[in-house]
């Protein structure tokens, strides 16, 4: 198995999750971290025994083949674009971009550079969600993939009318 050298840009809270969990997986080796704030990068690098670099140096680092972009959402596109332009594969925190124009431009540049771009979330790969996926594909609720289903769906946090009325009357 090939090992992919990884550079992380963005040393905020979520970086500890990636740095801490990467060793669980085959072929991932975090080699460098960077941040706009070099002190934050140095502190995180010392904590996980990796190299601290500037963003420019990390993007030029030949030992880094894939950049994990953990910057704030407003910076996702700019950082991902620079990484792709530098010939790096990119895995971004969500949301991958904030506009369709940025997303299409990133997709086109990645194709031109021959690199792959991906994005969190990856929680749908979890045991529970993959089990639901398997149950749906097995037709246990009356629908198999490819057959026109009659499914309706509800997701979390619906505002109930009485709460809405209470909030509006109070303001």
């Amino acid at each position, binding site marked *: 198995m090939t090992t*992919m050298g990884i550079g992380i840009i963005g040393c905020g809270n979520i970086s500890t*999750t990636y740095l801490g*969990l990467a*060793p*669980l*997986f*085959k*072929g*991932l080796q975090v080699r460098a971290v960077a941040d706009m704030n070099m002190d934050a990068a140095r502190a995180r690098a010392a904590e996980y025994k990796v190299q601290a670099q500037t963003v420019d140096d990390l993007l030029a680092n030949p030992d880094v083949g*894939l950049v*994990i972009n953990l910057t704030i959402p407003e910076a996702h596109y700019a950082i991902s674009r620079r990484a792709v332009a530098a010939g790096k*594969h990119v*895995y971004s925190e969500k*949301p*991958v971009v*904030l*506009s*369709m124009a940025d*997303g*299409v431009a990133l*997709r086109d540049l990645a194709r031109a550079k021959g690199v*792959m*771009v*991906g*994005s*969190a*979330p*990856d*929680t*749908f*790969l*979890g*045991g*529970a*969600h*993959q*089990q*639901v*996926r*398997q149950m749906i*594909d097995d037709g*246990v*609720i*009356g*629908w198999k*993939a490819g057959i026109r*289903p009659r*499914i*309706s*769906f*509800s*997701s*979390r*946090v*619906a*505002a109930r009318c009485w*709460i*809405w009325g209470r909030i*509006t009357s109070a*303001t």
Partner: protein
Amino acid sequence: MLDMGPYYIGNLINFLGPVRRVAALATSAHATRTVTSQPNPGQVIPVNTPTNIHALLDFHNGATVNLSVSWDVQAHKRVNMELYGTEGSLFVPDPNFFGGQIEMAGKDGKITPVPAWDHPFGRANQDNPHHGPLANYRCAGVADMVDAIVTGRDARCALDRSLHAVEVMLAALQSGATGAFVTLTTTCTRPAPLGPDAAAALMA
């Protein structure tokens, strides 16, 4: 919407595939919010985006979905995700996490827990102060992408799917502003399933 939406829409794409069109009501209950987290707790910031969104998603495969996202609710009695089919219903745990309890009902309408299968990304590996034992395998998407790069296949977290999810969210905001259905310009495929063996193969 843009913060929590990707978990839900990503899972819907996993379950049902791509979305054809979107309509939504989008409002805000508050003109300002007070920051509760570091580094600026107590700071009052203006609300510049809808914080209460009720969207209708029309999927290419014919599924009809009601997606509600709100910061303006104090309490609710909704399950994170519910799937209703002709033969039964599935109750899906929080897609912000890898594990959790699935429940199901058949035609008799009786809701019962579904025993978890033995999946490497469903096993609790952390003790969370708020949620108790938790399965956390963030980076799984990176590992899958690296394997995809090496073997020349599609990555499950590929840009085509996340970009489609972004378009679904932006379409809900746009529809909330205009009152009209928004037909999407992008599409994607369902990601390949990741069964227990395929997941185990990604682990060190």
